[in-house]
């Protein structure tokens, strides 16, 4: 189509496994609809640009997160296990276990992995922009990131976002 493409500008500020999903899902869906898409990764969103994504999830301090098992009968899978913070904070390896369970649950249900979604974004020419300031603060270098990643500052991203029909902060 000859008309100007719609544009989506996203800010990704969270790097946990659960919060890594929304920016990549929205970005790949928008790009699949022929929109131009750019994601600005800042603060805890930066590690999502790393060549190897090592995102984890923590139910600690997140009372809204369902604690369910990805195996067993349907009735068993629907049980929400109450986990007191005090208990979660003191079991070694609890976060790794919770991360493993969430990955398994997502896989069983047919949700794509973060790696697959990011690859889809790259294939569909989504611009991945790392925030220079937070890279300096947290000690990231461009070499840590996938080769498609660009680096820019707030002003450059805002100039891009100013031309976008849809802007979101995740």
């Amino acid at each position, binding site marked *: *189509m000859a008309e100007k493409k719609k544009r989506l500008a996203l800010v990704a500020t969270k790097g946990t496994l659960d919060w890594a999903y929304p920016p990549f899902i*929205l970005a790949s*869906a928008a790009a*699949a*609809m*022929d929109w131009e898409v750019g994601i600005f990764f800042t603060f805890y969103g930066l590690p999502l640009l790393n060549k190897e994504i090592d995102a984890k999830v923590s139910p600690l301090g997140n009372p809204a997160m369902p604690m369910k098992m990805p195996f067993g009968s349907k009735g068993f899978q629907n049980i929400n296990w109450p986990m007191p913070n005090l208990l979660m904070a003191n079991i070694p390896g609890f976060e790794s276990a919770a991360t493993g369970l969430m990955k398994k649950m997502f896989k069983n249900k047919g949700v794509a992995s973060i790696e697959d*979604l990011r690859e889809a974004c790259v294939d569909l020419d989504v611009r991945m922009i790392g925030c220079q300031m937070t890279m300096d603060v947290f000690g990231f270098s461009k070499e840590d990131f996938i080769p498609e990643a660009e680096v820019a500052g707030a002003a450059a991203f805002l100039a891009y976002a100013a031309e976008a029909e849809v802007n979101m902060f995740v």
Partner: protein
Amino acid sequence: MANVTKLDCSGMLCPMPVVKTKKALKSMEVGDILEMVSTDPGSMPDMHAWAKQTGHELLESKDEGGNVFKFQIKKTH
């Protein structure tokens, strides 16, 4: 004659059916038909929105029952 390409998105959840559809269209010629099957109920509203946004023609979208959805898309550009 329009070529027909088949795409099976069974078992995939959002946003993969639209992502795979877009990818499949890339290697097709204008006027060709894509037949896509999905099992995600969300793909019904999603495919209608996708067609409206991209301008490709959704010739058919059918709820076959039992969570099977069939779409026929014509590549228009």
